[in-house]
């Protein structure tokens, strides 16, 4: 069990956790956090998958891609948050009209 594999697995686990948050949460702001978890888990998986090797120093290409990914994810999150704020300001709710208005704080 190399630590690379270890991190790969925990990446997968984080993805699963985030997915659960994405499905199981109605409040959109919580979904956004979950979405960030999924993304981060994927980057972790990417880094770990690219690190399955002995000796040679780290592969820079995935690292660069991951940094790009982190920035993109942040941009999306910012837009997400802004839209949610606007929705709440307009409707006073942070759940999508179509979803069941289930309040888990």
């Amino acid at each position: 069990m190399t630590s690379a594999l270890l991190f790969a697995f925990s990446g997968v686990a984080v993805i699963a956790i985030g997915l659960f948050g994405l499905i199981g949460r109605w409040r959109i702001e919580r979904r956004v956090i979950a979405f960030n978890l999924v993304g981060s888990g994927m980057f972790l998986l990417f880094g770990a998958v690219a690190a399955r090797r002995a000796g040679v120093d780290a592969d820079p290409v995935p690292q660069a891609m991951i940094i790009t990914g982190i920035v993109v994810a942040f941009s999306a999150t910012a837009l997400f948050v802004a839209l949610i704020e606007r929705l709440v300001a307009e409707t006073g709710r942070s759940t999508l009209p179509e979803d069941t208005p289930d309040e888990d704080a």
Partner: protein
Amino acid sequence: MTPVLFDAGLCVLILGVALASVIVREAFAAIAFFIVYGLLVAIAWTRLDAVDVALAEVAIGAGLTGALFVGAMSRIAQAAEAQAAPRRHPERLAVVGALLLCGGAGAALIFTVLQLPEVAVSLASLAEANLALTGVTNKVTAVLINFRGYDTLLESVVLLVALIGVWSATPDRFWGGPPGLQLAMTQDSVLGFFGAILPPVGFVVGAYLIWIGSSAPGGAFQGGTVWAAMLLLAVLAGLIDPPLVSKRSLRFGLVLGPALFLAIGIAGIFRGSFLGLDPPIAKTLTLAIEVGLAVSIAATLALLVIGKPRRAA
């Protein structure tokens, strides 16, 4: 204790915190856990000797995202006071279903990961071989600005587009006003104190990160993020007021980096190929691009966290 054991412990922590950030009731607690999660993952990145990623994760993944969430939650909490819907627990069945689904997905992923060949095909040596032509010694920077600069160019535009999107979520009556709320922050508060002394320091740190980026971990994104953090601090401390969204100089600052990058790229067409930096001047061009990007990134990130205008000009 052996590294593997340390890693195992780290992973356990990461998973615990991640889980907590999803299941805790209080939104703010969730955010706190998420920030901690970011820091722990950053450590994980160092363990995967990806220090550049670790820096980016700390600065953006944990830091700015956290700040964004905190600000947003407080505003949403205020606005959502109105919603006094009865608090109901989600149906057990739904939860179980979600759990099964995610468990299944996770298992499938684990299985797929195990199918992967033992040793990854690494581009490290190839990057190494061509590093001399890029004028930099930090391979990640070489990839970001040179080998795959095209991705970075598009990404910098993505940031800009996000900001436009955020601004366009403004109610029309506030358009033209400065971003963010008027903060009743008094100079003598702790924040005010730090807000007064930190920015200069932080500015130097950021500049150093950008400069060092060519040879050591660091670069436009990490440095730009530090600058952004300092700007935020100064705004919070009430030292500076965010500029009007319509301010011409602000607009130019936002597009400076991508525009410079694009310009150099197009110039490259005449010297060889789009976004090609010819070796003799590659180092200079790289630095120029990094500085330009850092400026725009700093401004954009800071404004993304501050959010849309919430008061008239």
